């Protein structure tokens, strides 16, 4: 009986893992397509993209990278903890990282004057891609807080996997949009 229950548990966990990775890969494919579009349009409109990149803030994206990496570290540590209060603390710290990232990104938008309504292709694509990522960070932060209330191993595994995928997307997005 015990073996039946444990094999059922293992199967449930595998199914949960599969769903998490389907979700994660759908995000990676979507962001991969958007970033490829950004690069292709940058070849078609080099002047607009050079002018657009010159308007971008230099320091804030680097600070945001550090904030998101630190937030990812807290999420990874939350998955390692066995004590519930420590899990909660780590998850809330990870969520705070997401909130700080969002705040800094909004300051950056205000500094750059970026908008979807801008006429040039750089601003439109820049705002679309970074805004889509920012929505993921905001939503992820909310889920991190929610999971801090219900910190089961399965919930933590789900949100930390997705949080690290959001982290990976930023690590690729940062050089593609700001540096290359």
């Amino acid at each position, binding site marked *: 009986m015990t073996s039946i229950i444990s094999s059922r548990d293992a199967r449930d966990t595998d199914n949960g893992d599969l769903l998490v990775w389907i979700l994660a890969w759908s995000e990676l494919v979507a962001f991969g397509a958007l970033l*490829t579009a950004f690069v292709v349009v940058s070849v078609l409109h080099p002047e607009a993209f050079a002018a657009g990149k010159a308007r971008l803030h230099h320091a804030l994206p680097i600070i945001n990278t550090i904030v998101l*990496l630190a937030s990812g570290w807290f999420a990874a540590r939350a998955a390692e903890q066995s004590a519930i209060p420590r899990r909660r603390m780590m998850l809330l710290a990870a969520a705070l990282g997401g909130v700080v990232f969002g705040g800094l990104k909004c300051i950056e938008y205000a500094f750059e004057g970026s908008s979807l309504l801008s006429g040039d292709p750089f601003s439109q694509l820049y705002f679309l891609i970074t805004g889509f990522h920012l929505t993921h960070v905001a939503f992820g932060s909310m889920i991190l807080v929610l999971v801090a209330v219900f910190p089961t191993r399965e919930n933590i595994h789900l949100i930390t996997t997705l949080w690290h995928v959001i*982290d990976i997307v930023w690590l690729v997005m940062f*050089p593609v949009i700001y540096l290359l």
Partner: protein
Amino acid sequence: MKHSDRPNCSRALLLLFALTGCTFILTYALPERVPPALIAVMIAAIAVIKVRLVVLDFLGLRGGRTPLTAALWSWAAFVLLIAVACAALQLSL
């Protein structure tokens, strides 16, 4: 899993911060005589290393023989390769 294969989040975080510092230096602090194409390749390589660190240590896939690890950093390498190729194309025009 060998002891050295265990994910070490704190060591990974320090390495990630150091690599972010390297990216900053490559972008803003190098003299102008360094070829831009070389800088672009190095920035992309650092980004792939950072993704690999996050996958191995933050996602806890270090030591596991899963194709997921390779698939994740290959995704990053693929997107960055396109970006570097386009940057090189623009520099050559």
